[in-house]
């Protein structure tokens, strides 16, 4: 049996596959951030908290109403999306005329409130959420044991990511959206209701976070702090990909997941830092990000 740099190929392939799984979470979350940023110019600091709420809604649906995973998969993003619409209508929309940094500060405050409230009511130990029966078990791939559920996560998030990309880049609605990003006044003049479009975009962006939350619930504990640290990594992903770039967010998310997987094989101590190191390097070489354009 041959080794690659002292690492057996099973371990290497296994880690790459796991990196892909992580990467699909990064992609899903940074996609939501990118969509919101592209339209609203707001960095949604509450994204991690909304991801957490997505998981909690799934858990509450199960424990309080007895509605299982497949219900949650549809209902939870809807609920989170509506929450997002409410936040946008009541608070965020008041800030568009001001500097964009106020949007960041507002969502930071909102994240503190949401996380604090869930911590207060549910503690931090985390709540168990079972894997749906249909996806229990796993496949033996020879080099590793792949749980079915993780496979499903990759497939589901890839479909959602590329579906979103297609909708924005290749459809008429997406064209309006992109036009409104460039010149909202002109688009408004063509009779398209831009404020509604903005609200819907924010709702959709956070619904993606909610969806990621439901997908994560059976893998991780459902805990109020699950989004806190993840969101910073996702921020770095968005910076590397180029802010506002849809494809950039997806590709960078997946790529960094793989890179993190590799780091875990060769130098696990650095696996937390590697994303930030990459970010620093990218900023030095291409300040607008890999897929961003200098505006």
């Amino acid at each position, binding site marked *: 049996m041959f080794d690659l740099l002292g690492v057996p190929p099973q371990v290497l392939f296994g880690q790459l596959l796991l990196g892909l799984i992580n990467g699909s979470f990064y992609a899903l979350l940074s996609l939501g951030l990118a969509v919101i940023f592209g339209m*609203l*110019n707001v*960095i949604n600091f509450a994204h991690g908290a909304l991801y957490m709420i997505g998981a909690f809604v799934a858990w509450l649906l199960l424990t309080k109403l007895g509605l299982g995973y497949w219900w949650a998969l549809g209902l939870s993003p809807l609920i989170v999306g509506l929450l997002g619409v409410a936040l946008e209508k009541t*608070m965020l929309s*008041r*800030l*568009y*005329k*001001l*500097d*964009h*940094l*106020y949007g*960041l*500060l*507002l969502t*930071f*405050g*909102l*994240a*503190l*409130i*949401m*996380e*604090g*409230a869930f*911590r*207060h009511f549910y503690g931090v130990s985390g709540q168990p959420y079972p894997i749906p029966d249909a996806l229990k078990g796993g496949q033996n791939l020879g080099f590793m044991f792949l749980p079915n559920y993780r496979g499903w996560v990759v497939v589901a998030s890839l479909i959602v990511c590329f579906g979103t990309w297609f909708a924005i880049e290749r459809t008429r609605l997406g064209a309006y959206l992109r036009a409104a*990003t*460039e*010149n*909202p006044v002109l688009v408004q003049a063509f009779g398209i209701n*831009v404020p509604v479009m*903005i609200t819907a975009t924010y709702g959709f962006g956070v619904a993606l976070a909610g969806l990621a939350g439901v997908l994560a619930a059976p893998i991780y504990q459902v805990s109020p702090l699950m989004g806190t640290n993840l969101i*910073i990594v996702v*921020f*770095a992903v*968005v*910076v590397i990909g180029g*802010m506002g770039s849809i494809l950039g967010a997806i590709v960078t998310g997946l790529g960094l997941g793989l890179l993190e997987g590799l780091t875990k094989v060769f130098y696990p*101590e650095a696996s*937390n*830092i590697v994303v*930030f*190191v990459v*970010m*620093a390097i990218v*900023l*030095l070489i291409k*300040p607008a990000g890999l897929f961003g354009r200098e*505006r």
Partner: protein
Amino acid sequence: MATQSKTANIKTADSQTTTIALRRPGQDSTRNAIILGIGLLIALAAPYVLYPVFVMKVLCFALFACAFNLLIGFAGLLSFGHAAFFGGAAYITAHSAKVWGLGPEVSILLGMGFSALLGLAFGALAIRRQGIYFAMITLALSQMVFFMALQLKFTGGEDGIQAVPRGHLFGVIDLNNSLSMYYFVLAVFLVGFAVVWRAVHSPFGQVLKAIRENEPRAVSLGYRTERYKLLAFVLSASLAGLAGGTKALVFQLASLTDVTWQMSGEVVLMTLLGGMGTLLGPVVGAAIVVTLESYLAATSMPVPVVIGAIFVVCVLVFRRGIVGELQARFGRR
């Protein structure tokens, strides 16, 4: 929306009022002198009335917030990673005092020097982008410092560096006496505050304000804005380090708390609440937030929710902050 102004830096809502206030130096300086005099009297008397360690904590955070305010309030740069300088300096100071056995003044200066260097490195990277990008880059870089503090040997991991000796100031004054420690901290704070004051009222400060208001114009006037921004960043980082190092001696402890991104958020809140771009705002904001947190600690109210709610209220309806609001109301007479 308003995508056109994507490159514009933050314009504090009160920027107008501060510029007005600064345009009338005669009137303004008398009033400020009175306010400062009263403040100084309160600060001198405080340890006899309040618990000294508590007041020292307020002073350290006030200095930290002032340092942060130098960037956001006067250069329009929102750093979301200032905890790296605050906490980083705390570790260096604690290590110097405890392991190398250096005196308090040297330890604090070493911590501050470290923050200055770190500020230079971070600043050089971060000022390549503006606005939101700047905030996120500083956030990510400070997160690196957090993970390093967690993993490096000398920082003691989650235990931090404990039982740091306060030592003797200049080898003479015993800082274990809480009153001498208090007046030392007060002196450090006043020096830091004076530096901020001087920087803001110098030609350097004027250029910063020009950059904040309209960077392309400042460039066209021939200013190398990058250098000014970098210098402001390093200055702010050093002062944050001064505050962090001092805090490490006050509490005889350097811990992970000081390098978390929540700490960076906290200093944003203090400045926002007190009034961005005002000199006294950060001091007032720090005093309120620190008091509130120790008060809430004994109740069953969840601290983050209250802090978050203040954040939201400030951003939505109270963007001038307390001091900014007062200036707006009484400053135009």
